């Protein structure tokens, strides 16, 4: 059976520490998400789109090229945001997640994800 976008996203939850994964349009509307915790997807989409948008404005202003990945570290967890073609892949982890593993999985999984979009 063909893999759905939801299936592909849920696989990211198998990575230690990853609690939330979502694909979001550049306008902030959530396309699909999967999580092990309670989540306000509307709020997630809105803030992620604003974060990516303002970062890309910065990249354009400083002629740094396109945004590929964005890492935010907080006291209680981390957020990884990656460009996925016209969409945005977002993962939220707890503070114990090994960021290198998460970033590697994102880099490895993005191409397959884009094909499903």
């Amino acid at each position, binding site marked *: 059976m063909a893999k759905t976008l939801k299936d592909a996203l849920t696989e990211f939850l198998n990575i230690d520490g990853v609690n939330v994964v979502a694909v979001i349009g550049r306008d902030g509307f959530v*396309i699909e998400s999967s999580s092990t915790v309670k989540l306000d997807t509307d709020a997630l989409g809105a803030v992620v*789109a*604003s974060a*990516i948008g*303002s970062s890309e404005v910065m990249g354009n202003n400083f002629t740094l090229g396109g945004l590929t990945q964005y890492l935010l570290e907080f006291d209680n967890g981390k957020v990884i945001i990656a460009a996925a073609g016209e969409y945005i892949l977002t993962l939220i982890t707890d503070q114990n997640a090994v960021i290198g593993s998460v970033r590697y999985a994102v880099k490895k999984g993005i191409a397959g994800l884009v094909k499903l979009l």
Partner: protein
Amino acid sequence: MVKKVVDISHVVFMELIRTIISTIGVPAAKGSLMRIAINAGEQSEEVEFASFDDFVAAIETLENPIACMEGKAESLGDGLFGLPKCPFASLLSNYTDFYGKAPQGFEAIADEFNKGNPMNKKLRIGSGAGVGPFCVFHQPMRSQAGANIKIGGKKINIFQLGCRTGSGKKAFANEFIEEYGCQYEIVDKALDTYMCCYGVKVLEE
């Protein structure tokens, strides 16, 4: 030289939109305006009309939530409505009067709004029928307000079919014209007279 009297709140509002666009980019700005509009539409009054005629009559008496929000539209038959005046028309003229030029970057947000995407399909907005940044706000707000309205106990869908600028440029949502089941020529003719043309369809449950 004496400048024209303007409504400063309009000037500020336009500058806020321009700032949002320049700081977070066009797609995110479009989404932000849409979310504001959808949330506002959700707050509109829940109303039930016994019949479509009652829905239309309530526009004239401003007991129809859509009319309360955008002004009185005129019934064109077959569920079609034409709005004589864009509720946002004075914002652009106030800005231009104050600064002496049109705001920069607003065409881009209308173009973004017209791209196909799941939210546009769900609300039956944009997708070609946006002519300016205020369509990004007006159309979702109207569609979402429609979700709070019932006619004869049944839900309705509002289809954005076409829109026109003050300078006469027309824009059409061909997929929604087709889905609604009316002819392009009827919408085109309506836009000769009206700024906005939309259809209201009662859902068969």
